[in-house]
């Protein structure tokens, strides 16, 4: 019987096998150390990494030893798969996990599809047995996926990031003893559950909570260094966070919360910034300064922030003397402040005449309550933006210029809603006395 052989142009015939053998010593990549091969395969999208399994015998299961797995919606569109993309994704992830060998250190799943709970449950169970250290789940919006309890038995977790799910720790949960980073974004969880998770993770350094509704939270984390909060918070009490270095807060407010604030008597400033002596960088957005001004009283500002170098406060309302006072106190209690960025509230009225009359009486506070004679010796850079040429804004700038002998640059830019007052603003600015001879006043007007 004839032996019939078909080959493509690349492999000519059987005899070529011997020729191929002599070329084998040219294969350099297979001999690279395992760590480098893993590093190369990790930089490929997971589909491409899995494809290397049909390259040659040595490569057959190399991808299966990868310790970092990233699955995203690209895996839902495999050529030749006939089912809906959601099913393709589930099949692909399941198969990859099933074929995987060795530990998995990092697992990321990022999908916009609403996956079935049993599939994700199984994957998390699988990962909990593989000593997973980093777990990132970004699930599709809509139905909130309820995290299974096996997640809480991932004792080696150092990094946990959850998005769009529901978290309910079992009563027996003692905490993640190795957890350093916790990021919860749009997660449904009870306030006391979060508090207990946070306080039971002794090594927690990095905490980010975003898009929570009406959350009142007490944070106790002795090693916490970086804190990021975004959402509607009724109350934030940093009870035990002495190691905090950087804070970033974006505070949104609903009418309910506004009402709550009006009735509240506790001093938010003390509860928030009362116990952070090592703070170096503070960022506040939207209603943060308003939040801080609630329940404020002069003696509340006894703490000196000697490490605080950068303050960024956005959407400060310069129509509210209480907010301005809070900002002033913060600045004056930070002797080593280097950079200051303040942006005004675009909600300010653009009717200049109206604000002048209303604010005249308030201007007295600048003479009475303002701490003159305070020196911001380290302040080098100031940025003021979204200004509406309000009297308080002008007084504020005046105050800064007068008390910063080391100032190098001051950027001022008006809000785009107040075009007609720009000249007036400039006229005033030019008059202000400057303590620093080399200060540059840069006016940015688009």
């Amino acid at each position, binding site marked *: *019987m004839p032996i019939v*052989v078909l080959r493509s*142009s690349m492999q000519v015939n059987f005899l070529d096998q011997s020729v191929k053998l002599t070329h084998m010593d*040219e294969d*350099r990549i297979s001999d690279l150390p395992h760590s480098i091969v893993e590093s190369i395969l990790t930089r490929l999208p997971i589909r491409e990494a899995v*494809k290397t399994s049909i390259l040659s015998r040595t490569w057959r299961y190399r991808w299966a030893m990868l310790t970092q797995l990233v699955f995203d919606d690209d895996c839902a569109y495999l050529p*030749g798969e006939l089912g809906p993309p959601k099913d393709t994704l589930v099949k692909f992830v399941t198969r990859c996990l099933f074929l995987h060998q060795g530990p998995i250190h990092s697992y990321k799943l990022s999908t916009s599809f609403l996956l079935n709970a049993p599939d994700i449950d199984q994957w998390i169970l699988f990962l909990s047995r593989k000593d997973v250290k980093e777990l990132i789940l970004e699930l599709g919006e809509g139905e909130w996926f309820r995290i299974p309890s096996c997640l809480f038995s991932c004792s080696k977790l150092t990094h946990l990031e959850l998005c769009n799910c529901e978290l309910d720790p079992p009563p027996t949960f003692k905490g993640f003893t190795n957890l350093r980073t916790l990021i919860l974004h749009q997660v449904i969880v009870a306030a006391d559950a979060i508090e207990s998770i946070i306080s039971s993770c002794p090594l927690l350094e990095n905490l980010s909570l975003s898009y929570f509704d009406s959350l009142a939270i007490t944070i106790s984390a002795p090693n916490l260094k970086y804190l990021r909060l975004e959402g509607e918070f009724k109350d934030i009490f940093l009870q035990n966070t002495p190691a905090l270095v950087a804070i970033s807060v974006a505070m949104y407010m609903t009418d309910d919360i506004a009402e709550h604030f009006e009735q509240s008597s506790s001093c938010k400033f003390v509860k928030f910034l009362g116990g952070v002596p090592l703070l170096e960088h503070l960022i506040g957005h939207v209603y943060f300064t308003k939040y801080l001004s609630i329940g404020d009283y002069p003696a509340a500002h006894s703490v000196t922030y000697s490490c605080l170098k950068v303050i960024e406060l956005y959407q400060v309302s310069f129509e509210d003397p209480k907010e301005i006072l809070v900002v002033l106190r913060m600045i004056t209690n930070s002797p080593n402040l280097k950079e200051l960025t303040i942006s005004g509230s675009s909600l300010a009225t653009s009717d200049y005449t109206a604000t002048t009359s209303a604010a005249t009486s308030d201007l007295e506070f600048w003479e009475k309550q303002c701490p003159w004679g305070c020196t911001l010796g380290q302040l080098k850079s100031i940025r003021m933006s979204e200004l509406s040429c309000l009297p308080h804004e002008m007084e504020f700038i005046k105050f800064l210029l007068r008390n910063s002998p080391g100032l190098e640059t001051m950027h001022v830019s008006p809000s785009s809603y107040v075009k007609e007052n720009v000249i007036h603003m400039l006229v005033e600015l030019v008059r202000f006395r400057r303590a620093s001879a080399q200060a540059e006043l840069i006016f940015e007007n688009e």
Partner: protein
Amino acid sequence: MSEGIIAVIKPEMKSYIWLQTVDGSIQQVEQEVAMFCPMICREVIQTGMGSSKNYAILLPQRVNPFILGSILDYCRFHQVQGRSNKERKTFDEKFIRMDTKRLCELTSAADSLQLKPLVDLTSRALARIIEGKTPEEIRETFHLPDDLTEEEKLEPLRNISDDPRIRLLNRLYARKRKELREREKLKNAEVEEERVDERSVDDLLSFINSEDAGYSATVTNSVISVDAKGDKTSKNKKKNRRRKDQIDSTSNKDEENIPKELDTSPSTNNILEANLSRAVKVQDFSSGTFSPKLELDDGFMDDDLDPAMKEELDREVEDFARRLNSDQHFVSEL
């Protein structure tokens, strides 16, 4: 010592480190450049080696003189403090433009010298080379041996491997085999014809699946090697019947049992292979396209069957092709 005298005469001369590569050659390198490599730095500090030609630091085996030159160029550029990130990036992009063999050697050498930035750079470059290529292209680029059997290539990673030609080949082969079997049955006794009529698609599937292994063992991505041994024809015919009997009795079981059959019937196919070689015209497959001659052969064979048979055949092939893709995915490694 000559070095000592030189040092006295020209005190402003830079200090050098002496490095010896595995082939025995020794070269001297400016100290700040050599110390950029953590491994060399450690050697100098811990053991004090490298200060003279006789005490040259022995570099790891993976560093040959040519690669050492490249690495030192890299170190020489990056150890200068004042360069901007953009400058460094531009240099890096130009630096890694080399053939893949050298790139692999460079990665290996940089790793043995613990020069992590360079290892990262070369790893990124290698990943970029691999990304987007087909397996053949990757094999060609890196001179990898194509030493997996076809069976191993096709399972258990079908459709994860993402090679559309394998799947298409599968389908065509299944169709061919099926048609051959039909022809054979028509030639054989009525018993088999009855069988054809009685069997459900499941039965046909199981039978075809059992032959699948044998065939795919001889199929590469772009190769169909058909091996026929004529002297075993009669014996194999008997074997075939026995196999068919076996399969018939087991065909009522769950389809998931089919995988067991795969490995137990490697030799049933010789007769069919012989038929195939006669029926299918031999041709080269250029990468990615299938020769239209196969389609002609389809037509040739279909003329032998009556139209009703043909319709059933077509329907079953389509059904089979669909099932082949969905069911075979669960074949695990055996």
